């Protein structure tokens, strides 16, 4: 890809944003910290209007305003600090990939309200799975990826403020064109974009771009440009591609709410609508690995979904706040200033008579902050889908996992599914609470190929590590016949495969607290038992055609919840 093109588009996106910040919502800028991002940020800084930097852990008080205690006490009346959001402007959120779902929801509401805010997400995700919350990205018109650009190729080139003002003035006079509307909507459908925000944003973007160019009306070039800026990152399918790509794409994006029927009717559009040129232009910009990207997006979405209920364990200073309670500060707990003041407040009129101090706080008034923190369990299902297992009892194993998923639901566990077959392992489902997805992924899992047991164990260990960092307690259920025949490097060979499996088993043992091995071999063999030995967990033999009993056994092996 020609790198400067990506940069030119970034500059155009920023210019359009300057013209109509509230209408376009904002921009997602995906780049690691470096000179290129610095240049981009410098360009951002030149955009008109106030700009505020926020951070992923920003408190609601900072964001939405709150009581200014010092001033309130001094003046004897309520003094509120204005929040950052009270003056409309551009909010810049660095480290957007760390944005917790709660903040994402709040910012989303802020963008929905007609408050004139715009948001720039600086996404520093290193892995494809790490990304800014999709709910927020959906509300921002533009997404640009600056990775792969070299600093020598970039320079901030934004139109002068006067030009931007002139463009804004022209914006209102641009006539709406029916064809533009139809074109952009159809195009969105053809790229499998379900959200209706996308065409709305594309239309707004096209208008802003046309205004920037001083055009009298929307022309093809603006539509193309807007579509190029808005659609590629949201695309979930390629229009009119060879059959095989299409199918894989749909396999990988099980979107529960996508109306397949709707998309089908939509892909054979009316007579004047198939805009070959536009499709080509946007398709050329689709990231090379669209399918990987799509999968990664679903993953990122799944990974975020688990965090909603707050499953983090961070000692007694963090977590879900509980009502403050009276107590003495002991160096560990923090004083809840507001609650303490509330407790002391009613007595002030009385106490003031005895002393000169303005606020009299007695030890009994002191309130301490309390937080509750829990650690949720993550059950990682590691499923052997190799030929040997598939022949034997893959279907039964799937049945057992489904039962377990039902129980996991009842206990509010998070689940993840890793499958291994052929030469590698794949994380079918990152940690999530969405059982429907888990079930769907599992049902679609094909069987066949070698048994890369070591790769499977390694993937599970990596997942456990990740989960532990997020405050989850990982456990695993490994369904395999234990007959490894593909080594970590993808080469077949029983001896090497077994050696690798032993090494990675130690890795997994270190990474998890609980687990069990379920022997899926036609006849219970030594292999699975030996593997369970390396993992230091129980080995359960899959009873013939009795998934119910199996799930009971696993449940007790995993500690019964």
């Amino acid at each position, binding site marked *: 890809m020609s790198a400067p093109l990506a940069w030119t588009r970034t500059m155009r996106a920023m210019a359009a944003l300057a013209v109509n910040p509230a209408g376009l919502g904002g921009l997602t800028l995906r780049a690691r910290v470096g000179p290129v991002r610095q240049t981009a940020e410098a360009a951002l800084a030149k955009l008109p209007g106030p700009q505020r930097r926020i951070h992923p852990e920003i408190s609601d008080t900072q964001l*939405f305003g709150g009581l200014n205690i010092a001033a309130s006490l001094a003046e*004897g*009346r*309520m003094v509120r600090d204005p929040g950052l959001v009270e003056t409309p402007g551009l909010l810049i959120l660095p480290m957007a990939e760390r944005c917790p779902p709660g903040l994402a*929801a709040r910012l989303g*509401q802020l963008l929905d309200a007609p408050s004139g805010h715009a948001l720039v997400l600086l996404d520093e995700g290193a892995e494809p799975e790490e990304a800014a919350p999709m709910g927020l990205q959906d509300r921002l018109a533009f997404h640009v990826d600056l990775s792969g650009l070299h600093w020598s190729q970039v320079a901030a080139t934004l139109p002068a403020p006067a030009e931007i003002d002139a463009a804004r003035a022209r914006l209102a006079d641009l006539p709406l064109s029916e064809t533009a509307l139809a074109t*952009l909507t159809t195009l969105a459908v053809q790229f499998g974009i379900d*959200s209706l925000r996308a065409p709305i944003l594309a239309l707004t973007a096209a208008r802003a771009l046309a205004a920037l160019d001083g055009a009298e009306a929307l022309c093809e070039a603006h539509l193309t440009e807007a579509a190029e800026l808005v659609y590629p990152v949201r695309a979930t399918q390629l229009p009119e591609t060879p059959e095989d790509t299409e199918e894989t794409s749909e396999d990988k994006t099980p979107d529960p*709410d996508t109306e397949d029927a709707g998309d089908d009717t939509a892909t054979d559009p009316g007579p004047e609508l198939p805009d070959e040129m536009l499709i080509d232009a946007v398709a050329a910009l689709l990231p090379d690995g669209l399918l990987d990207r799509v999968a990664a997006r679903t993953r990122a979405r799944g990974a975020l979904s688990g965090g909603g209920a707050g499953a983090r364990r961070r000692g007694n200073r963090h977590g879900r706040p509980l009502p403050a309670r009276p107590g003495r500060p002991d160096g560990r707990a923090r004083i809840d200033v507001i609650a303490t003041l509330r407790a002391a407040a*009613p007595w002030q009129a009385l106490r003031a008579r005895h002393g000169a101090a303005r606020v009299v706080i007695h030890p009994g008034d002191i309130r301490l902050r309390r937080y509750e923190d829990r650690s949720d369990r993550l059950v990682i299902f590691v499923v052997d889908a190799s030929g040997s297992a598939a022949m034997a009892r893959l279907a039964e194993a799937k049945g057992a996992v489904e039962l377990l998923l039902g129980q996991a639901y009842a206990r509010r566990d998070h689940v993840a599914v890793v499958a291994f077959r052929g030469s590698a392992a794949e994380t079918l489902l990152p940690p999530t609470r969405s059982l429907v997805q888990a079930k769907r992924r599992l049902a679609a899992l094909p069987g066949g190929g070698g048994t890369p047991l070591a790769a499977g164990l390694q993937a599970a260990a990596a997942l456990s590590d990740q989960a532990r960092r997020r405050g989850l307690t990982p456990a695993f259920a490994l369904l395999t016949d234990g007959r490894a025949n593909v080594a970590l490097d993808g080469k077949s060979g029983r001896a090497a495969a077994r050696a690798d499996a032993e090494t990675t088993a130690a890795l997994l043992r270190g990474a998890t607290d609980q687990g069990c091995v379920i022997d899926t071999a036609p006849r219970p063999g030594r292999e699975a038992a030996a593997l369970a030995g390396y993992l230091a967990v129980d080995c359960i033999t899959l009873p013939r055609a009795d998934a119910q009993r199996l799930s009971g056994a696993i449940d007790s092996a995993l500690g019964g919840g």
Partner: protein
Amino acid sequence: MTTPFPFSAIVGQTQMKLAMVLTAIDPGIGGVLVFGDRGTGKSTAVRALAALLPPVTVVRGCPVNSERPEDCPDWAAVTATDLTTRPTPVVDLPLGVTEDRVTGALDIERALTQGEKAFEPGLLARANRGYLYIDEVNLLEDHIVDLLLDVAQSGVNAVEREGLSIRHAARFVLVGSGNPEEGELRPQLLDRFGLSVEVTSPDTIEDRIEVIRRRSAYETETETFLAHWQAEDAALRARILAARTALAGVATPEDILRDCANLSLALGTDGLRGELTLLRAARALAAHEGAAAITRDQLRAIAPLALGHRLRRDPLDEAGSTARVTRAVADVLA
């Protein structure tokens, strides 16, 4: 830009709109839950609802919007006895809200300045006789959910904190919206919503284009657009008011009661709340349609909304609850 997008101008989404209109006709139905994907117009509809609702009559200056002077809580010390009208309150419950802002707490200002213990009403007080809207309801903190469950059940907000002992009426229609991908709702909270709807993007290209067309008209030619649709909204408001008066006169035949019970039995819904909501919502629909008595048609239309979220959850059932309800309706009302 401050006028919300008009309710009538929302393309499609008939179920969602119907559910909201029904709660406006009979607030006793108990709330609407809207679940759907991103960009399907969930928030737009709720914001539009506020502008659609008929005004309410309240005692002037009463913090809990009491209907009669004798209903005003003692602690509010309302001296006025005259009535005034105001728009139906639609109160937003922000996600990061603290417990004391929801229930109300000691009024710091008065405590600081006058050394008095006084109660500062919270969001629940403001939402009395109106709507309480929670966007992204599935991301709401557990302790706030607990609090809402209790109040939504009893219709009374009791505050026992900081030496205060206060109670006041808190009857509101709970409207929640969310994206199911971001987390599940606890069954106890699900049950508090009378009706639930799932929304998806419109599935024909014409509808999609129409959405975009109206949206951009709203943004660019705001005045003409609003003038047209606010008239439609006014007509709908008149229908809602007419339905409210008609509501009491709608007859409930014995057969319909039996049908309600049979439907709930067939679906195995927990408790009687499902049947009661089904009946109430069907009656509201009959009033809305100008029918003299509830018929099976109304039951058919309402059943998915009223029962869909009350089914004993089978997390692995692919078919989805709507399909199960439709099946049961076809069987029972055959």
